[in-house]
């Protein structure tokens, strides 16, 4: 299937327009309309998220331009192309844009929702910005119709425009999070931040103990999840593939994967804390159980990648099943297993809910045994977040958030490197 992105097809439209023999008035008109509409939708989007309003007059001018362009398009499709039925949408849209441009100053600065007993109101800039987004997206997608002579390709082009816009919407929060945390967090990185423990409720000092605690939790969790997980996967793939018991086990793994982290936390609180106290051991047991399904899934996939012929070759030489698994099947599957485990542990490193009742405390010493409580980066960030406003902890909170994201990303990067470097091809 030939793939086209919207950017690619837009470029093509523009290129064709400026080639002299192709530059029909219709194409120029459509290209200009699409560009103006895209501009308007982006403008509307950014004024929504950055809470600014460019003022009545500029918006009216922009809307006016769109409305005039659309009047030409309407003329083309009604008179030249004679597509009466298909033009109804265009007509309604044009009238709507004209009306919007006309009625803009009449929108009150604030539309209170008190009449619906809600303590909120829709501000004018919000209404106008959202309207701009809608006008822009609809405008661009309507323009595709005359451009492609009202064929099914026109529908395709307008659908793709909307899809691309949706993708930008998905990427936007990610960009906001990464950019904000990087900019605000990097200033908090100092030698003290990495080498000292919390001072004054986290307003000064650093996260040294939290870093150590996070590593301890990750290694403990990894030990439990890898031992149990690899063994489970070996049983499921090598020994028994079907049957009612295997089915039950698989259902259990599925359920385990879906259980919310807070439920694990309460489970740890009810079972392990009465025995081991708030301690590393309680924490890693809970976290180990939580990471287990991810490790099992990854190990299963890695084991399945080892072809059957390799195992049969080993049996033919007289090796037992266990020898085959240990010497022949596991070694090539190991990179895949480790990759999955590291990915799972990366997820575990950011978890807060299962640890907050079972292992984590805010002021901690460096633990000496597995029965001591620890501090982790995620719990540290939770405490700082709760203290924002009460103590000057903002700088350290941003830095901790950056460190935490860096930690998780670092784990993912390690996983990818392991996968690429030690990949075994059959």
């Amino acid at each position, binding site marked *: 299937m030939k793939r086209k992105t919207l950017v690619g097809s837009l470029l093509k439209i523009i290129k064709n327009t400026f080639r002299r023999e192709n530059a029909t008035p219709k194409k120029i008109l459509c290209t200009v309309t699409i560009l103006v509409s895209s501009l308007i939708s982006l403008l509307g989007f950014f004024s929504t*998220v950055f*809470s600014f309003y460019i003022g009545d007059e500029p918006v009216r001018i922009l809307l006016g331009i769109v409305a005039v362009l659309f009047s030409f398009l309407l003329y083309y499709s009604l008179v030249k192309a004679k597509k009466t039925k298909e033009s109804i949408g265009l007509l309604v849209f044009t009238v709507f844009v004209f009306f919007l441009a006309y009625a803009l100053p009449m929108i009150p600065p604030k539309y209170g929702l008190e009449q*619906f007993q*809600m*303590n*909120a*109101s829709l501000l004018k800039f*919000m209404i106008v910005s959202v309207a701009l987004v809608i006008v822009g997206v609809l405008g661009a997608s309507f323009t595709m119709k005359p451009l492609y002579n009202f064929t*099914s390709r026109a529908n*395709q082009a307008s*659908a793709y425009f909307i*899809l691309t816009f*949706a993708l930008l*919407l*998905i990427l936007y929060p*990610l960009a*906001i*999070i990464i950019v*904000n*945390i990087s900019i605000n967090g990097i200033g908090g990185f100092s030698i003290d931040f990495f080498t000292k423990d919390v001072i004054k409720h986290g307003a000064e000092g650093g996260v040294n103990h939290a870093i150590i605690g996070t590593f301890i939790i990750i290694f403990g969790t990894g030990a439990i999840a890898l031992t149990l997980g690899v*063994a*489970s996967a070996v*049983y*499921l793939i*090598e*020994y*028994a593939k079907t049957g009612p018991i295997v089915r039950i*086990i698989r*259902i*259990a793994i599925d*359920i385990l*994967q*879906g*259980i*919310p*982290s*807070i*439920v*694990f936390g*309460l*489970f740890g609180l009810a*079972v392990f804390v009465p025995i081991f106290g708030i301690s590393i051991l309680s924490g890693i047991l809970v976290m180990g159980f939580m990471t*287990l*399904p991810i490790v099992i899934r990854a190990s299963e996939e890695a084991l399945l990648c080892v072809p059957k012929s390799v195992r049969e070759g080993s049996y033919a030489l007289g090796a*037992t099943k*266990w020898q085959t698994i240990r010497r022949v099947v596991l070694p090539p599957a190991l990179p895949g297993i480790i990759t999955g485990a590291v990915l799972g542990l990366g997820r575990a*490193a*950011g*978890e*807060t*809910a299962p640890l907050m009742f079972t292992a984590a405390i805010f002021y901690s010493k460096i633990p000496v045994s597995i029965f001591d409580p620890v501090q982790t980066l*995620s719990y540290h*960030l*939770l405490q700082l*977040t709760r203290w924002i406003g009460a103590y000057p902890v903002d700088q350290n*909170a941003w830095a901790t*958030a950056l460190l*935490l*994201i860096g930690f998780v990303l670092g784990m*993912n990067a390690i996983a990818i490197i392991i996968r690429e470097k030690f990949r075994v091809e059959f």
Partner: protein
Amino acid sequence: MRMLLSRKLKEAVIKNIFFIAAAFSVFIIFFIFYYLFQQAFPAFQNQGFAIFGTTWNSDTGHYGIGAAIYGSIIVTVGAMIIAIPLGLAGAIFLSELAPPYLRTLLKPIIELLAGIPSIVFGFIGIILLVGYLHLTFDMLSGYSYLAGSLILGVMAIPIIVSMSDDAMKAVPRDLKEASLAVGATQWQTIKKVIIPTSISGISAGVIMGIGRAIGETMAVSLVLGNIMKIPIPPWNIFESKVTTVTSFIVTEMGESSGIQTKALFASAVILFVIVAVMSIVSNILKEHVQKKFKGG
């Protein structure tokens, strides 16, 4: 002869060790359910059906978690209104539209969104989102169902995208090519062939997304006011004195005692049951997809 016997014995022992490890997951599930239920039982006994009621008042001894369940539903529905259209659009873009280089670039980026810890989402929610909503909607505080829905929606998108993408990628090539061969455009193929064939995989992804949204704790607890109340009117998404099941457990657990703690465990049991049912349904749908394309 004896050597052979001991070798067989060893093999049998090893097999059983592996079996025990594999069965451990089942034990954990039973353990979790048993202990949570054991903790929650006094609350069920004490409150009866009032546990689903909407009054939470330690003075009168009423511990109904109905308002929190209502909150969970509202916040999740709001999150899905955001996440399902965007997630589906993202999945279609990734699996059908994006050229290979864009796909290899975008897929890890969207998975990155899934990897951001929930506490970071909560932190960003408190610092940026709540203030933004406060200004934009002229609200009292900005802490609201709306903030929770926005955050959960963003968190659920990557799950829906990656599972729907997998489902659409699994649609056999000949189906697509047959559709294109009879003259359908690419978009018609997506609409009429790819989405209908992969609908069970897509729904599995959506259910997983809902499961994550219901179970998500830290992010949502930070942007709600955490008072056990149904707002007036019930659809008031701007009210701050509201809570969800997970968020209420996290905020109350530290300060509760006696039957109140038991009631929190009871809400965890309810949560467990809901999520377990959802993951079973999701996996049945996924298996259905696999069977469909293996057989055909």
